[in-house]
């Protein structure tokens, strides 16, 4: 029992922090307090270190009768999730301080609950736990999206997310029911064998897989289930958007990696990978083309996050195509690497968005104009994130793409690799536009000087992300090796 609880640490620690936070806020009488910020950051940091420690020590295993599989992939994803949570909390401080319309003491507590759900999703090995994880992750996010109660956009975002999210959950549950019907088991790891043992069943398992995937696609914002993304990302408070874009994606892709063998048996490797490939292509192009004309930085990053989900789906398609081959290992590590790199560069970019916002909701891309002369360091850091998102070497973004696309090549999906590369070219247009605004376009004549302030927490977060993005890009050997070793082991 103790062993089980210890393994569930990445899930339980943030939950504990959430409870403590609620208690603290009760004592503080609903006033804003520094205490809850620090406690929340500490909670995320402890969860991060805990997951990292277990990962380094190789303490993995099944917990709670096999319903949780805390393997290395799950721990790595927990690390990414808690890292995102920590950075999002660091970004939140100046964001919340600058605006008066968020009077919600439970803000920090909700972030921790969501992080707990995400860690659970990454480790879930049972359909019931999957559902628990999904809901534990989503419900706090619905609230967080709408937490600026007096802002119409924020409430709209929350409502939209809630309604569509409820739909997605229904699909997910439907899929689970069908899969249970087709296999008689709720254990994810047992599903493929059971489905195969019970033989053909008129497409029951295939139908179940598709329904299940619709639910997951909604969470990762894959086309055609991406419609909510731009509105929700735009309306939510920026640090919440950053958290949503990175950690949700990590958790959902963790689930997808665990679910890949079920796709391969339920639909057949051919059909499953073709479907994933089509979705991946659509997602990459819709995301990149949609981002081209955006004037709002958060919306632009929303479309960009759709595109990045597409790149990662390329890796999933490759894994499903060669079910059980060597590629399951390289593919999983590629996606996990991508998730880590993406988390660092995206959180950094949102951090810069928080600085530009300065409590007045200034989210237009034009706010980037002349940033180079006003805040050279901030502009340089943003340039690093932008180039990383665009996939230009020597940044982590390039290596992530290199890694994922090489999986497509290994699975002999050459056309998919070429299309993915073309989609990245489209992406260059809008990423370069951001740089162009920062460096090549001065601000309008007579524009008032802006008070762009960064508090030290935000500065630390952005700087750490930038270092990580460059470090993973220039010296990726240890990390790639580590991911390969752990994901494989």
């Amino acid at each position, binding site marked *: 029992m103790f062993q089980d609880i210890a393994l569930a640490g990445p899930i339980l620690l943030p939950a504990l922090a959430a409870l403590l936070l609620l208690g603290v806020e009760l004592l503080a009488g609903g006033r804003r307090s520094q205490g809850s910020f620090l406690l929340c950051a500490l909670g995320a940091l402890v969860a991060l270190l805990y997951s990292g420690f277990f990962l380094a020590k190789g303490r993995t295993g099944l917990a709670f009768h096999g319903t949780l599989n805390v393997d290395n992939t799950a721990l790595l994803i927990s690390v990414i999730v808690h890292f995102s949570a920590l950075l999002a909390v660091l970004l939140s401080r100046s964001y919340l301080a600058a605006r008066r319309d968020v009077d919600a003491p439970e803000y920090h507590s909700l972030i921790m609950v969501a992080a707990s759900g995400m860690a659970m999703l990454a480790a879930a090995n049972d359909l019931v736990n999957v559902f628990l994880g999904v809901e534990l992750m989503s419900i706090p996010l619905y609230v967080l999206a709408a937490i600026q109660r007096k802002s119409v956009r924020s409430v709209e975002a929350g409502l939209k997310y809630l309604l569509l999210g409820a739909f997605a959950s229904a699909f997910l549950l439907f899929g689970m029911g069908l899969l249970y019907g087709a296999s008689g088991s709720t254990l994810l790891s047992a599903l493929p064998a059971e489905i195969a043992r019970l033989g053909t069943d008129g497409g029951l398992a295939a139908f179940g897989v598709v329904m299940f995937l619709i639910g997951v696609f909604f969470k990762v914002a894959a086309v055609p289930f991406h419609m909510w993304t731009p509105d929700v990302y735009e309306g939510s408070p920026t640090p919440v958007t950053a958290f949503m874009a990175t950690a949700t994606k990590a958790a959902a892709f963790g689930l997808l990696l665990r679910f890949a063998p079920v796709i391969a048996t339920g639909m057949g490797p051919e059909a499953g990978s073709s479907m994933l490939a089509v979705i991946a292509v659509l997602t990459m192009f819709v995301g990149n083309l949609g981002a081209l004309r955006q004037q709002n930085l958060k919306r632009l990053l929303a479309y960009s996050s759709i595109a990045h989900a597409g790149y990662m789906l390329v890796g999933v398609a490759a894994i499903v195509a060669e079910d059980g081959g060597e590629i399951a290992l390289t593919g999983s*590590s590629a996606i996990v690497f991508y998730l880590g790199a993406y988390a660092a560069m995206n959180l950094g970019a949102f951090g810069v968005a928080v600085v530009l916002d300065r409590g007045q909701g200034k989210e237009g891309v034009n706010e980037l104009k002349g940033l*180079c002369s006003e805040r050279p360091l901030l502009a340089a850091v943003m340039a690093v994130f932008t*180039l990383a998102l665009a996939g*230009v*070497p*020597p940044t982590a973004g*390039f*290596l992530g793409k*290199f890694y994922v*696309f*090489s999986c497509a*090549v*290994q699975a002999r999906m*050459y056309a998919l*690799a*070429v299309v993915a*590369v*073309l989609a*990245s*070219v489209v992406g*260059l*247009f809008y990423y*370069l536009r951001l*740089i*162009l605004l920062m*460096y*090549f*376009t001065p601000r309008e004549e007579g524009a008032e000087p802006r008070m762009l302030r960064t508090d030290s927490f935000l500065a630390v977060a952005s700087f750490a992300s930038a270092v990580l993005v460059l470090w993973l890009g220039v*010296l*990726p*050997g240890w990390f*790639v*090796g580590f991911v*390969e070793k752990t994901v494989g082991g």
Partner: protein
Amino acid sequence: MGALDLNSFGILSLITFLPLLGALVVAFLPRENPKVLRAAALLFGLANLGLSLLIVNAAGTMVFVERLNWIPAFGVCYGMAVDGISMPLVILSCLVVPIIVATTFHVGSGLKEYLVLLLIMETGMVGVFCATDIILFYVFFELTLVPLYFLIGMFGGVNRIYAAFKFFLFTAFGSLPMLVAILFLLYQHHQTTGFWSASIADLRSLQLDAATQNWVFAGFALAFAIKVPLWPLHTWLPDAHVQAPTGGSIVLAAIMLKLGTYGFLRIAMPLAPQAAHTFATPVLVLAAISVIYGAYLAWAQDDLKKLVACSSVSHMGFVMVGLFALEPLAVRGAMLQMLNHGVSTGALFFLVGCAYERRHKRGLDDYGGLVKVSPALGIALVITSLSSIGLPGLNGFVGELLILLGAFKTQPVFAILCASGVLLGAIYMLQMVRRVCYGTPNCEEAARLSDMSVAEKFAFAPLVILMFWIGLAPGFLLERIGPAVDSILAALGNT
């Protein structure tokens, strides 16, 4: 190998990353004092040039080999080495940077950024010529793109944003199919040998069938043809050149375009030898069109910078003809001509920049009588134009002669077409010289241009020396280029 054993201390890494250190140093110097900034950049540039001269004896085989694991999971190494092909290009890269520092006197408030970008650029340029690992090559190849994009976009002319954007997109569009080709090769190597390797030498030993080779070659060729640039992919070049600041134009002409031809010689041809033969004729057709079309374009220009930019298209087409004649003499000539073009066209952009700073106009008819008005600038322009035309005794002649001699053996038709390009080159260059350097000044301002400053003279002198030295004693370079070229051609299946 020289008398010193330099293998042990990573001279190539030093040459590659010293400029990056310089960029960091410059970035932390106070922006208020341009003299200090310029002096620091110049110091790093000259130190690096001095270091680069230590590799001057590289010839037939890869020397100064460095090899470290980089991404072991994919067999990707940090591998550096030089031979007779990369050595001159490395030195040219190191030479160009201090020269450009001398053109920065007109750069105003952004001088610090300018110098930082320039030094980062040097790291990319040197790295790309030293890399023996294909991923490392790719990384440096892309790394050169980013600083130049910023240089053009931040310091360029009126249309700089459009030009920078076009430049980045064209080249990035080309390099991504290359990435797929690289991924494919890595995977093939893994399939056939069972282990991952990204070393170019290892990948060369792959025995791919003809159809596969064609695809691989096509992937690389697109990237390199855009960089060269080969007609009809050249349209980004005039825009980029005209809008770029003088330093950007010099780097672009002297080094960046060579990445294309170097890539063909070092990567595309050896990795897909059969496809190099298959594709020879189509590439030659495009190259011949580039030679002639580029020359006509140059002839039609009234803008000095555009004229030089279009002449680049023509000259680089000439280099491509030399490469794809697949004949030892022609390839030697192509290699030499790459350097010649770097020196001559770099020098032309330098002089056009000098003239522009004084006159603030670039039209051919905005000058006149330059030789009388400012003798040093005028005479320098005359010499450089003659070197670009290929006057015997100057550098251009040797390269063009070798290319034509070689090409006549294997591809007589294309050789004849190219020879007409030489003729056209003489026409547009000489009419430029006539209108700009001779006659009488066209207006008051043109008659009162100041002459080259001491700094400019010092910066320009090495280029003139190189023009005469390569022209009169090409043996030194050819001795080193020759064996390296032969070893590549041997792998292509003809000697």
